[in-house]
């Protein structure tokens, strides 16, 4: 799972996972806004990368300091949005919610993305439950 998440972060690192609608025609202003959001997102990704690169992660344990909960929550969301938009766009919302992998015609790359999508949601749920 570590390699899958690292690859997903790498793919998503330099762009926002969803469209940002500012309803503002000032291009410079909009670009600056988006650039700041990307920088913030990358800071969050760095925290998540540190966590999944811990030795304990390889042993099936994920250790997150409670002062890093926000960064992890945001980065999990960003990756899940990117997975949804880029790799699972053919899957309906309903299929995604039921999560029955066997019923979905997926290639290996999509299956890995789907598992990461569920894995990251579980991390988010655990953080929210334990806060």
């Amino acid at each position, binding site marked *: 799972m570590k390699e899958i998440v690292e690859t997903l972060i790498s793919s998503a690192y330099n762009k926002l996972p969803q469209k940002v609608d500012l309803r503002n025609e*000032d291009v410079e*202003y909009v670009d600056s806004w988006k650039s700041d959001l990307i920088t913030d997102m990358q800071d969050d990704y760095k925290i998540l990368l540190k966590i999944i690169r811990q030795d304990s992660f390889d042993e099936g344990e994920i250790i997150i300091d409670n002062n890093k*909960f926000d960064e992890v929550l945001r980065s999990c969301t960003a990756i899940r949005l990117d997975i949804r938009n880029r790799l699972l766009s053919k899957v309906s919302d309903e299929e995604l919610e039921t999560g029955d992998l066997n019923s979905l015609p997926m290639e290996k790359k999509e299956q890995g993305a789907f598992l990461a999508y569920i894995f990251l949601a579980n991390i988010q749920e655990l953080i929210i439950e334990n806060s």
Partner: protein
Amino acid sequence: MPPFQNSAIDLPETKSSPKTSTAKPYSVIVLNDPVNLMSYVILIFQKVFGFSKTKATKHMFEVHELGKSTVWTGHKELAESYLYTLQQWHLNAIIEQNE
């Protein structure tokens, strides 16, 4: 600071457009998306706006069932700050000037 305290978080610096000034208030509107967990959306509303869990849950269900919810109304500069913060959390949000 505890990670999920039930109060508003610090907002980023205001990002104001150079050509703005109007008395009409702006609304911050959160739109539905198929990815974010309900519990996550509730949490963000509590953190960003200092909503109670009940109020945050009401707005979350509005987003989920009606497709959108107006979560805040006021001056443009502060509306933009809230918008930026919601987008940092990857919620699908916009601001609109009231009629």
